[in-house]
């Protein structure tokens, strides 16, 4: 059976084609103004990548902030539900899932059978999410891709108090004026996010193993800060940004 999951996120729309428990195609594009249009495009690209046609697909399920907008989906599942399914599928030993997006962060505690025991979501603030790194990388005149490797070379811990993206940026600027090394500032940015995310994880209660999914999981500097903060190892699957779309594709098999 072939199913497709579409994750309509704040920043990117992802689609995953699943065939009998195997991912055979995927796509990722920017979410435009029209979420349904972006979803349609991502869907078509993923089908092309998999070498199948819409006629082969048994069911499509959507997830993400724009999930209701995805008109061609048979049903939708919340971000928490899709993240839990996708993470458990890829990392069977994981019981605490940290899901970071562009503007949202979530911590989900799972029961051994994969069911959701509890979850927490960041409040109305992007300081615990991917956009934060992006805007800080601008202040440091580097790219979001470079932030991770840069911070791995840090030599000094610099405390950053601000919890708000806007105020944090002015704090970064004042660190620059104090001639703080770029590497140390990059580390401080990741430590800042990590603090926010870790409190959320502690709120739901940590159960081993920990898994991290979502685009920001590609940032090795952030992963390191989180590991140091929680004093735990954290599993990151290959292609962490597609996990929720994969979770939706799994959900689609349940409703097909």
């Amino acid at each position: 059976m072939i199913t497709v999951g579409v994750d309509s996120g704040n920043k990117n729309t992802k689609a995953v084609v699943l065939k009998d428990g195997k991912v055979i195609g995927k796509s990722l594009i920017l979410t435009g103004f029209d979420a349904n249009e972006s979803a349609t495009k991502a869907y078509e690209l993923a089908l092309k990548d998999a070498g199948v046609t819409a006629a082969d697909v048994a069911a499509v399920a959507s997830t993400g902030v724009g999930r209701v907008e995805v008109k061609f989906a048979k049903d939708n599942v919340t971000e928490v539900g899709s993240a839990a399914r996708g993470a458990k599928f890829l990392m069977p030993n994981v019981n605490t899932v940290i899901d970071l997006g562009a503007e949202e962060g979530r911590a989900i505690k799972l029961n051994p059978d994969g069911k959701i025991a509890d979850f927490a979501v960041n409040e109305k603030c992007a300081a615990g999410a991917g956009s934060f790194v992006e805007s800080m990388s601008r202040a440091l005149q580097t790219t979001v891709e470079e932030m991770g490797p840069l911070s791995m070379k840090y030599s000094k811990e610099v405390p950053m108090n601000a919890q708000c993206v806007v105020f944090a940026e002015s704090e970064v600027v004042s660190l620059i004026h104090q001639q703080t090394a770029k590497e140390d500032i990059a580390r401080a940015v990741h430590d800042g996010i990590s603090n926010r995310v870790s409190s959320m994880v502690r709120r739901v209660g940590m159960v081993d193993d920990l898994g991290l999914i979502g685009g920001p999981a590609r940032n090795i500097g952030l992963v390191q800060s989180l590991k140091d903060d929680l004093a735990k190892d954290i599993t990151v699957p290959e292609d962490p940004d597609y996990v929720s779309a994969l979770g939706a594709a799994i959900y689609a098999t349940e409703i097909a």
Partner: protein
Amino acid sequence: MFEQFKNWFESRHDYAKDWKERTGGKVIGYFCTYVPEEILYAADVLPVRCLGGHEPQDVTEPHIFGMFCPFCRDVLAQGLKDKFDYLDGITISQSCLHLRQAYTSWDMHKPVEFSYYLPMPHHVQSLASRPFLRSELVKFKEAVEKWTGKTLTDADLDRGIEIVNTNRRLLKQIFELRKADVPPLTGLEAMYLVLSSQMTDKREHNKALKELLDQLPGRKVEREIGERLMILGSENDDVPFTEMVEDVCGATFVIDDHCTGTRYFWNEVIPKEDRLQAIADRYVDRVPCPTKDWPKRLRVDHIKNLVEEYRVQGVIVVQQKFCDPHELDIPAIQQSLKDIDVPTLFLEFDVTAPLGPFRIRVEAFLEMMRQDDLF
């Protein structure tokens, strides 16, 4: 069936102005539900609760700290913007400092002919609170007498007690019906009942409640009931949020613990020869607000009882941002519900609730509750 109550709530200012015109009586705004409305009704004064307007505003910054709760700032804004310009008096009983600041600032900038701060004791778990509150009520009664020029007799107080007690009794009878498998009213409809009760003449409200009570037993909410939810926490008159949870997410609120809900009317004045002592006892014994619920946390058992009686499957815990008293209570309440396997969802309210993000959370919460049926 609920149109009248909804209209009263939505046109509260028109109602109060019209009431003044028809009766020639005085209207007093009260800030907290610890104000003894019995004494005001005895004096033929109409008490109306000062609630917020749920609109962004820019007038309170010079008067109240930005990290005081949004409800208090919203209430003060209503005063500063003359939304309650028909009030003849204002009054507050001590509960939280944020709200007291709203009252103090309102009093300073929009003076009216009568203003009264009632020092309701915090330590209601002490026996000493009973004579303390009684003696404060003596002073309050005297102040009201001086203001209205009317001496309040025992017969007047009995009448005041009867009006407010009847309202409480009727509301409770209607809330009892929500225990049914298919309740005859939604959470939103119940919300309109209590909120309108806080801003209309209870004699008229009682009449409408009686008519409603006659019709309700034959009625059933027409849509699927979905999950039976309880909502509890700070002041809550957020209609759009309640509407979203029930109409969009498909669950139903069957009970609450708010001062804009059950806490307002749950217990009655038990008649006593000493009327003021009887009234004082009622406020000491009522379901406490978190500012008064210590050293023992009596509300926790009360909430657990409601969960059991109303067969609640999940609880949404809301708090007005920066509301310290509730912040102090919420971890204990969530833990105690967790101990009896009742899931909770915590949401932080502001002047306007962010419906998009809240919807995602409520749906994920319901999905979590539903997963046993899914697999």
